[in-house]
């Protein structure tokens, strides 16, 4: 926009200087032709500059929208998975995105530590304090909130909801509703 202003100013100066010289008729018609030439050249410059600026701004908007939307999706993953992303997703992220995910997880952790409240559990309203789950992967012995359990594959057990949710979202357990 500034360049366009400069071009317009140059045009005005040229016009003014032409009038001040006060030339004869012949020279007037010649300089008239020159003037229109210069004006057209300047106008195409102005239009060129405007088109360049507008397309730059549009590209910037598109790029930022793309990066921003990806960042949104990464954040929603962070709510489900906690702090480590599975391999198939990690290879689809750029380095900056991996760094952003780490930073975001750290920010969330610090907020939750200040509040002393775990915010990633309880994503759906609870219906029962305990739920029945079947273990899909071999996890081994884990100390849960009120028992020490051996989570072997294909075992069906009753777990506290807050404990089981973490494994369910990671796909290591499934809920039995039948």
């Amino acid at each position: 926009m500034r360049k366009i202003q400069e071009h317009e100013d140059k045009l005005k100066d040229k016009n003014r200087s032409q009038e001040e010289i006060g030339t004869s008729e012949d020279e007037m018609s010649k300089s008239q032709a020159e003037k229109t030439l210069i004006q057209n050249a300047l106008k195409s410059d102005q239009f060129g500059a405007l088109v360049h600026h507008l397309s730059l701004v549009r590209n910037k908007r598109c790029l930022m929208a793309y990066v921003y939307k990806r960042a949104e999706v990464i954040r929603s993953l962070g709510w489900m998975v906690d702090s480590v992303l599975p391999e198939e997703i990690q290879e689809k992220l750029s380095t900056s995105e991996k760094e952003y995910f780490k930073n975001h997880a750290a920010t969330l952790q610090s907020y939750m530590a200040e509040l002393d409240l775990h915010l990633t559990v309880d994503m759906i309203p609870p219906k029962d304090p305990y739920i029945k789950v079947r273990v899909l992967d071999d996890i081994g012995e884990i100390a849960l909130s009120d028992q020490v359990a051996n989570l072997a594959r294909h075992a069906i057990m009753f777990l506290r909801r807050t404990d089981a949710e973490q494994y369910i979202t990671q796909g290591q357990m499934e809920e039995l509703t039948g």
Partner: protein
Amino acid sequence: MDSGAGESSAADDYESLMSTTDAELLKSAWRNEKAAPEILNYAADLVQRSRQQIQLMEEMVEDYINDGVDPLTVSLYQIDLDRTMFLLRSYLRTRLQKIEKYVFHIQKTAEEWNRLSKQEQKFASRFAGDIKHHLDQSVLSRLPDQYQSHLRQSAASEEDDMVPEPQLDSYVVCRSKKYLGTYQLNDGGEELINIEADDLYALPYKSIKPLVESGQVDLV
């Protein structure tokens, strides 16, 4: 948690008593927060009291388990506890998600910045720094000099036009508890509506914003 239920026989008294217990207050704060397009005031003392009550309940449940009280009663108390914890967590989560969506706008507007709690303000600053750094690294550092701001499209824009703002004229469904009489909808004084108690209205959020803030109208 719902203490003092049904001590007096009249239904009105029961209603007003129920609506002032912390559980009900938390529920309505949660509902308002979920339905409103912008972030509302942080109910600091409500959250504080709820956490204290949750703490008490947890200790009580533990004592019951150790004493060997009827497991059915214990699980009932447990589920009540769980549901309250869910309300609290979901309330805080909804606020966080709104902050994430509109962080640059909230940082600019002092009124909205004051609606956040201190921890939320810290979170918002760190979050804004994170996302600015990410955008800078991926996109903005490769652009020519005049276009590198994350708030403006280019240095020639007159205002910060790349900041998303909450849509204040989106429609919300609301209900008032008492009869409020005639209320002027728009600033131009175009429409007057009668707000009756317990009637549902679908209105643009902007027109009832002051009523929501004073607590006279609840969003559904």
